[in-house]
């Protein structure tokens, strides 16, 4: 009996290790199934039930997390907000990762002027504080969800490029690369079959860490009014509304913030376990 108890306890503790993956799956499910699981239409206004506290009963349901200044259900908006956060972060990680890795590998493979141009460009992009670069680009391009993805990809590709470049250089003198080059293999062939599989792990670690950062960036831009535009439910813009009602309706800002925090914490914890968070700060902002 003693033995059984102990083993169950250990099993529960081992299961508890999976919490970041569990949360990530929950948020992704929220993003995919938001129309089916959210109790209300996120944009539906109940003008007679504005700024109501959590648990307020209204015709057609209950505001489990309260309602905002236009009488919209906070829970539904949080669920739809997950859709924006997850999809923007996912797409910008994919775009910046593909572009950055490709350019970095090419720069490492084709030494000379091409490498110089790409890597100096990387220096330039990394020397502008990421949030300022994003603000500058949004100010020029204008806000909106597509532009946010574009801006985030544009500001984050150099990080992948720098790593891909360094890794490609370190592989350049290995036998399989040298021989493949000597036998006249095309650049595409060498990069695809010899270089990429060998650097994929490092790229994946960066992508995991970047995911949390992208979520924060999207929310930050939306908070500043430069990201996803109203009435679309973004956690960042909900927080910015909530800031104005912090003394009368704490629930408007608390729940989207909590969602943001748990999603980013899960992504960072996974990243930490996969590869360890970097200590150099040029990657964060």
């Amino acid at each position: 009996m003693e033995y059984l108890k102990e083993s169950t306890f250990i099993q529960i503790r081992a299961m508890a290790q999976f919490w970041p993956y569990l949360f990530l799956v929950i948020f992704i499910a929220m993003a995919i199934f938001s129309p089916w699981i959210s109790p209300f239409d996120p944009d539906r206004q109940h003008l007679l039930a504005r700024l109501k506290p959590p648990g307020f009963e209204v015709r057609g349901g209950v505001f489990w997390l309260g309602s905002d200044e236009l009488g919209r259900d906070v829970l539904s908006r949080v669920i739809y907000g997950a859709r924006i956060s997850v999809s923007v972060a996912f797409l910008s990680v994919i775009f910046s990762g593909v572009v950055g890795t490709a350019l970095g590998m090419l720069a490492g493979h084709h030494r000379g002027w091409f490498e110089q141009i790409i890597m100096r460009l990387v220096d330039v992009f990394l020397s502008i504080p990421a949030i300022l670069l994003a603000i500058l680009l949004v100010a020029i391009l204008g806000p909106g969800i597509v532009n946010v993805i574009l801006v985030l990809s544009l500001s984050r590709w150099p990080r992948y490029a720098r790593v891909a470049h360094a890794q490609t250089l370190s592989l350049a003198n290995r036998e399989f690369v040298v021989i493949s080059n000597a036998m006249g293999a095309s650049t595409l062939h060498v990069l695809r079959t010899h270089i990429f599989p060998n650097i994929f792990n490092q790229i994946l670690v960066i992508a995991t860490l970047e995911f949390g950062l992208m979520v924060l960036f999207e929310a930050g831009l939306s908070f500043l009014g430069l990201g996803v535009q109203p009435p679309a439910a973004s956690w960042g813009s909900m927080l910015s509304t909530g800031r104005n009602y912090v003394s009368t309706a704490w629930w408007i800002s608390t729940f989207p913030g909590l969602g943001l925090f748990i999603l980013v914490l899960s992504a960072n914890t996974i990243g930490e376990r996969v590869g360890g968070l970097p200590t150099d700060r040029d990657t964060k902002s």
Partner: protein
Amino acid sequence: MIRFLVFRFSQAALTIFGVVSLVFFLQRLTGDPVALLLPETATEDDIKVMREVMGLDQPVWSQYANFLFDTFKLDFGFSFVRNAPVSEIIISRIPETLKLAIGALAFSMLCGFPLGLIMAFTARRQVSKWLMAFVLACQSLPTFWSGIVMILVFGVWLQWLPTSGTGSLSHLIMPSISLGLLSLATYARMTRTAVLEELDKDYIRSARARGVRTARLVQKHLLRNSLVPIVSISAIEVSQLLAGAVVVETVFAWPGLGLLTMQSIAARDFAIVQIIVLLGSFITVSANLISDLLYSIIDPRIRP
């Protein structure tokens, strides 16, 4: 050493040149910069005058040369929205942001160093795991949310601290903590790594074998040897804080450079936004340069 200095300085200069060019061409790529530089209420005549003032009738390359030359001369142009020279406006905001950055840096150092030390000394115990989780949480907290929560708890419910604005020292507390949380995580991590590395060395072990007490060990050996690399990252940390100030200043209505950026974007005052971006990257490049130079003075082996 001279060669290294020349190399690093020219690299930094090249990067700055690249940033200035990038800002110029990004502006031109989107079409008419006059639309970006003038307020929305500008009339046809204003636009025409502006074109002549800016020399937009000249070819792009001579405009580019002028922009480079003006920036080099520290002539940052004129804000037509605020009707004042850009440099004047920016300089008037710098002290507020500097105050905030110093407050945040002080907070993150005062909490980060001891936290890192404790984590290093308890590395094999459960306490260290919990502290590490706390540090990771600090790193994952969105600045704007931690700010709002603090306003709610300390400003609205407990009414200990003012919710926004500037003035007394108590105004500085919440924005500093909110801005400093991320740096706190960095300092704690860096200190932990550096001290753990140092703890493994022979001289520490022999000191321990001689029976030197932990407090004295930290004071006499560890701090001296592991603090230097940590302090030299502070240069980079400052530049990060200045970028983070954009959000924190918006949350707390703190009248510094960050709030100026947001106000300028809202007013479509691009003349100011572009110079703030240039300033931000100039500070980042200089910070990287300083920290590289500090490292090379401490450890001459890294010089190429």
